[in-house]
């Protein structure tokens, strides 16, 4: 006799959260304990999946953008997990190889804690951004694909490229229901030493969260305001939803 779900189980259709699970005494039913165990195992595995740099670069190149490949100063996953400082810096070779390409926006695609998120969402999000960039007349620098990377690495890359702003598309820490969620961090006037309070974040780009189009809409709004006001971060509130998230403006041919 398995413990039944709760009588309000129908509400579970409204959220990916685990509601109406039922209980055995005060505890979770056996099926839920086992389901949670499986989800945890998948999330743990996602942390250790390597980024397929070649495949991601090819999809970016197919959008007509140049893709560059670099790595952080963290040599492997185990070092990366214990040494965030190394994940925020480029390797010596990578730094030497980055020449200035002045642009309005530098895009950085980083594995972060979920390569699965980058595989699934990064190219689609950049594709959705392109019409906004074309309409606004923004120049986009080479897309830098970087492994064993943390958010702040975008500062060093943006500074080296001499970009007016940098957007880091990075795999978020895997959740139990969401092993493939992408985040975007926008920083105006990137340079080494910027703090997190100087960034704007768009999170939860994943099948049951924000779509690539919605994320691109928000990013375009934030970038426009960041360039106009000359800042990003807590002083720049995201009010993009005051403007209807309609289809992006048509590209002039």
């Amino acid at each position: 006799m398995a413990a039944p779900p709760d009588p309000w189980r129908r509400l579970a259709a409204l959220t990916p959260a685990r509601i109406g699970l039922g209980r055995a005494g005060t505890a979770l039913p056996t099926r839920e304990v086992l389901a949670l165990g499986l989800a945890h195992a998948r999330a743990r595995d996602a942390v250790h999946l390597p980024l397929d740099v070649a495949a991601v670069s090819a999809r970016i190149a197919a959008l007509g953008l140049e893709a560059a490949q670099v790595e952080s100063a963290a040599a492997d996953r185990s070092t990366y997990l214990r040494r965030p400082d190394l994940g925020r810096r480029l390797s010596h070779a990578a730094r030497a190889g980055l020449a200035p390409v002045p642009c309005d926006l530098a895009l950085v695609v980083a594995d972060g804690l979920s390569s699965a998120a980058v595989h699934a969402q990064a190219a689609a999000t950049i594709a959705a951004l392109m019409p906004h960039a074309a309409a606004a007349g923004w120049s986009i620098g080479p897309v830098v694909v970087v492994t064993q990377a943390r958010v702040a690495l975008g500062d060093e890359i943006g500074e080296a490229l001499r970009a007016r702003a940098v957007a880091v598309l990075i795999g978020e820490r895997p959740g139990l229901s969401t092993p493939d969620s992408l985040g975007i961090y926008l920083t105006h006037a990137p340079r080494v030493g910027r703090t997190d309070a100087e960034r704007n974040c768009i999170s939860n780009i994943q099948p049951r969260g924000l779509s690539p189009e919605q994320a691109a809409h928000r990013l375009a709004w934030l970038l426009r305001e960041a360039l106009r006001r000359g800042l990003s971060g807590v002083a720049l509130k995201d009010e993009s939803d005051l403007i209807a998230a309609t289809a992006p403006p048509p590209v002039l041919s």
Partner: protein
Amino acid sequence: MPFAQTTGHTRWTFADLAELLAKASPPRSGDALAGLAAQSLEEHAAARMALADLPLRALLDEPVVPYEADEVTRLICDGHDAGAFAPVASMTVGDFREFLLEPSTTGETLAALAPGLTPEMAAAVSKIMRNQDLIAVARKRRVVTRFRNTLGQAGVMSVRLQPNHPTDDPAGVTAAILDGLLYGCGDAVIGINPAGDSLAALGDLVRLVDEVIRRFEIPTQGCVLGHVSSTIELIERGAPVDLVFQSIAGTEGANASFGVNLALLREGRDAALSMKRGTVGDNVMYFETGQGSALSADAHHGVDQQTLEARAYAVARAFEPLLVNTVVGFIGPEYLFDGKQIIRAGLEDHFCGKLLGAPMGCDICHTNHAEADQDDLDSLLTLLAAAGVNFVMGVPGGDDVMLGYQSTSFHDALYAREVFGLRRAPEFEAWLARMALTGADGRLAQAAAGHPLLAAF
């Protein structure tokens, strides 16, 4: 001032107080990352011996973060109450541990002492205390706070209902709130971490929670965990804000990385007080903290993460908060590597916060890149329930689908109540009985599909 300790034939020296505290701190990855940890277990043991011999007063006389450079240090030093400190002024750190453990040292003793204690004193003594000491002393000290209900009394453990949704979808958030209420959770606060930080989205969530609370006349409070500056702006725009939230840390630099300083926190508290929405009290602030945030912001001044965490509680207590929540495993394995380190840190944070007079709760949690699992969360929940924690999190199924980490669930809170006989905030307990969500024995009743809470949706 340098310190020295001899163990056998080895003489260990520690250049200053910060080094002594760091090397006496129980091992954790964040201190190793910062290059502050003891190089051997024997050096760690020697540092604890030297620390035990240190007069408590030395921790007052030699600030670990310079007074001139840091407004948190100035808050600590300028606010120190010498009269309250007098009863323990001549003790060493080792004496102080024994004093805390004496049965004659009661909750009242500790409450009277709190204004005389600095966070560095609390951190120092915690470093020579075992887990059982941290539990035994903390459980004596109740820190009671009030807004629409009474939190923190003896025998009470409350729950923050955390109904997060990946896109802040109103129906999804509401469904999770109902699930939590039907499981008897939500007396600490119904607190949402927003996925977006736009003012419009934050305002919508504030109104959503307010409507649920008013519609069912629930004696609890709502909070949307946006940045304090956003919440101030919402208040100016007339949104029904109960509590003002902010993440805080133990140095001026780390707070700056969160985009806050003490003046802004004062402004936030004044704005919340101006709403006059509390019915039984006016504790209007909700703070979150966590070991490692100062190092993460590169603002640690060579001080270990546990000592800096205690300094965050000195910031918190200055604003008479309703809730202070140490989010103990959220920051990741580079600061707290595994279940053992997370459990130790949770007990230290709860002890230090309570000793300083903060209404401590704990988000007992881990990320999926840490070496920890649900068994570790069960262990820390059990230990903190024994220690008298004010509140823990209630996340549906323990899986936060917005923040992507694992915390304690509504079910977990029921477990702790059952094992320790813990009750809910009295006003909320009465509401649950009135709504027939609990039976005569206080246990959860079997809610029917036609319950009024559900019929409305």
